[in-house]
């Protein structure tokens, strides 16, 4: 028997390959074990250059792309305009997140100096005094970013599973690396890991059933198999529902959301920002590709499932966010609700939904990165006068507008965008998402979504009132401080500006997004 060389179009993979090469190079730097300060600078520079270069390469490919797209591996990995726009978005989110990863407040970054040391142990204190740093976080984050970018191109259930693991594995570990409140962080990581492993198993079960019915793992072939093989499509349908569980888990849709609040609260805030923005974007991209290319002929059967999930996600996310007293948990529940809003668009199975989802996730991701960047800057002051952990209790945010007017203003912009107030990106995002659902006859879903959005305004505005109209409580006067370090300030500035710009002149990005509403099978 003879060996046939596979045909692979390498060129469209360039952005992904850049990120992976940088990740592997980062590991090589770690093994060379240079001094901490050299290592840190090298890793930060490498990660930033890699993510920005990846974004630029993907954008360049968009401009030179002839036709709709390229089949990297026929039937399995396909690079079209839709995946390119997601790739640019994820790479930009990643670059902003890397800025947050590298920021230091009072000389300390957000990560444990020595993750293997037991919390509160002698070794930990020693490592902290020596100024050690766990710089492996940068290559690990890059592996995850590369996986997310690849995720948007995959058209094959088996490859989707492997890339899903590549995305998740580094994330599980990053969640466990918080410098402060380490037990909470480790508990969050364990929860995320166990639930994630379970969701992956359910996904794999579904993929196996699909294979049993369609005799293939390729989306294109599954699509034709559903029509051709009468009598076996039930197997594909059951498999589809189980496979959806795995993807919806990453999106944090109810009832697969239970990990989200704990993981978002326990993780180091830069990692929370990264997960909330980039992972969700990648999950939506893969969900769209799976739903629209592989199983869109099951629209009639799956739609009720997706509708139920979308409604449950919006309601649970919104209602649970109202009663939270911790800003990180509140933002976590709000991100669950946003997952529901984007599902409203996705369930329409219309071409419009493709561009709506892109715009929605861009608006949501920018505001999320900015909001968590602000959260990372509001710090408790310990008794000896040094900066401590993040002040995440809502009470500690009272009078933030007096402490740092521009940080508070930026936070207000992000919250208004979350709420979907006109002149912010969030409003346009909600408008296009709901319009896509409405045009395809999903008006009951839109009614629920609008109601949820109105209720959600309550808890966003509550935080704004707390920041600007409530005076600083006497006993907290010196107990909270807002630091304005360079990296996060830059991120806050960029994302706030982008949020306002997208709200005022959305047409440029909307045009790009509607150009990207093409899926190549």
């Amino acid at each position: 028997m003879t060996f046939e060389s596979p045909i692979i179009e390498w060129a469209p993979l360039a952005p992904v390959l850049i990120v992976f090469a940088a990740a592997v190079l980062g590991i090589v730097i770690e093994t060379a074990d240079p001094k901490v300060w050299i290592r840190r600078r090298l890793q930060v520079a490498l990660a930033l250059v890699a993510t920005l270069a990846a974004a630029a390469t993907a954008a360049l490919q968009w401009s030179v792309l002839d036709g709709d797209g390229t089949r990297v591996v026929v039937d399995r990995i396909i690079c079209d305009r839709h995946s390119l726009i997601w790739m640019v978005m994820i790479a930009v989110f990643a670059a902003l997140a890397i800025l947050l990863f590298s920021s230091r407040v009072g000389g300390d970054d957000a990560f444990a100096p020595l993750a293997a040391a037991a919390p509160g142990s002698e070794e930990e204190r020693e490592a902290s005094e020596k100024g050690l740093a766990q710089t492996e976080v940068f290559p690990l984050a890059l592996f995850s970013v590369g996986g997310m970018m690849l995720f948007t191109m995959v058209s094959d259930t088996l490859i989707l599973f492997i890339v899903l693991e590549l995305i998740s594995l580094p994330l599980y570990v990053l969640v466990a690396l918080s410098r402060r409140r380490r037990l909470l962080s480790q508990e969050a990581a364990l929860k995320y890991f166990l639930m994630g492993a379970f969701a992956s198993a359910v996904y794999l079960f579904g993929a196996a059933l699909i294979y049993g019915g369609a005799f293939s793992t390729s989306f294109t072939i599954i699509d034709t198999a559903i029509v051709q093989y009468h009598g076996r499509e039930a197997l594909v349908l059951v498999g589809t529902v189980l496979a959806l569980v795995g993807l919806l888990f990453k999106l944090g849709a109810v009832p697969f959301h239970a990990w989200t609040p704990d993981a978002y609260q326990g993780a180091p805030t830069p990692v929370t920002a990264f997960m909330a923005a980039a992972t969700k974007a990648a999950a939506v991209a893969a969900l769209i590709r799976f739903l629209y290319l592989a199983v869109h002929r099951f629209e009639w059967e799956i739609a009720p499932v997706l509708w139920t999930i979308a409604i449950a996600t919006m309601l649970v996310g919104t209602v649970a966010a109202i009663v939270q007293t911790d800003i990180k948990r509140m933002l976590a529940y709000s991100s669950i609700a946003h997952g529901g809003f984007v599902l409203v668009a996705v369930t329409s199975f219309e071409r419009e939904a493709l561009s709506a989802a892109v715009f929605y996730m861009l608006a949501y991701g920018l505001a999320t990165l900015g909001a968590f960047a602000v959260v990372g800057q509001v710090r408790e002051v310990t008794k000896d006068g040094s900066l401590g952990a993040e002040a995440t209790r809502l009470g500690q945010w009272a009078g933030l507008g007096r402490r740092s007017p521009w940080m508070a203003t930026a936070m207000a912009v992000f919250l208004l965008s979350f709420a979907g107030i006109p002149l912010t990106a969030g409003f346009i995002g909600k408008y296009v998402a709901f319009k896509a659902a409405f045009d395809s006859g999903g008006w009951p879903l839109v009614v629920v979504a609008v109601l949820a959005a109105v209720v959600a305004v309550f808890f966003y505005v509550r935080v704004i009132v707390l920041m600007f109209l409530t005076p600083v409580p006497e006993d907290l006067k010196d107990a909270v401080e807002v630091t304005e370090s360079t990296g996060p300030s830059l991120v806050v500035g960029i994302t706030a500006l982008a949020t306002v710009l997208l709200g005022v002149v959305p047409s440029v990005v909307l045009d790009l997004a509607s150009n990207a509403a093409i899926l190549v099978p």
Partner: protein
Amino acid sequence: MGEQELFWVMSPVIVLASLTLLFARKAVYVLAGMIVVMIGLAVFYVTLEAPFLGMIQVIVYTGAIMMLILFVLMLVGVDQKESLRETIRGQRWIALAAATGLVVLIVTTVYRIELPIRDIGGMNDGGNPQVIANALFGEWVLVMEILGLVLISAAVSAIVLTHLPRSGDRRSQAERAEERVRARLNPVNKPMPGVYARRNALDVPAIDPEGKPVPASISRVLKARKQDKDGSEWRAIGKDEAAE
């Protein structure tokens, strides 16, 4: 030929063994059950003319992964008890109801399906491992590369979470011995269990020159499991003689 008979013989064995996951009290029994399941699957693979997969199943899962888990259990799991307290009320019943629903759904679906008999003769032409190698390094080569990246990130993650660099200088054996003498600790090795006692089993403490048992001679694992003896009944001088 005989495949069906073998299936009906092996599958009850596998199902019973997998039930240990739910009902066995000790983690080691669960592990033993899993090993039976893994070997049973390997038998299926071999009868379905996928001998390479069958062998890999035995070597990798049974041989490597299960043994690793066994070692981990032996090293860390002995003095820990599993908490069976439910933090969410009625969780067990909710889970049972959901699981029953899933079973009913999948069984009814699979029951209704008519799978055609596919002719896969000639699938293994040129040898089963060769065919798999061609698939892995031909059509699926990109996936193999991605798996390489998954392995790198897994290895680095494991090191990040567990590796403690040595703090302080490395001390030589002579220095450590000197320190122990200075601190008036026992300068020599601890005695082995059973030394000078009437039996030399692992759970019997050694006897010192005065005829008293030496508790330090027994492994701490046995102590944690409360499987050690206090040694009084195996003293060199018996209980009654000592009393006289």
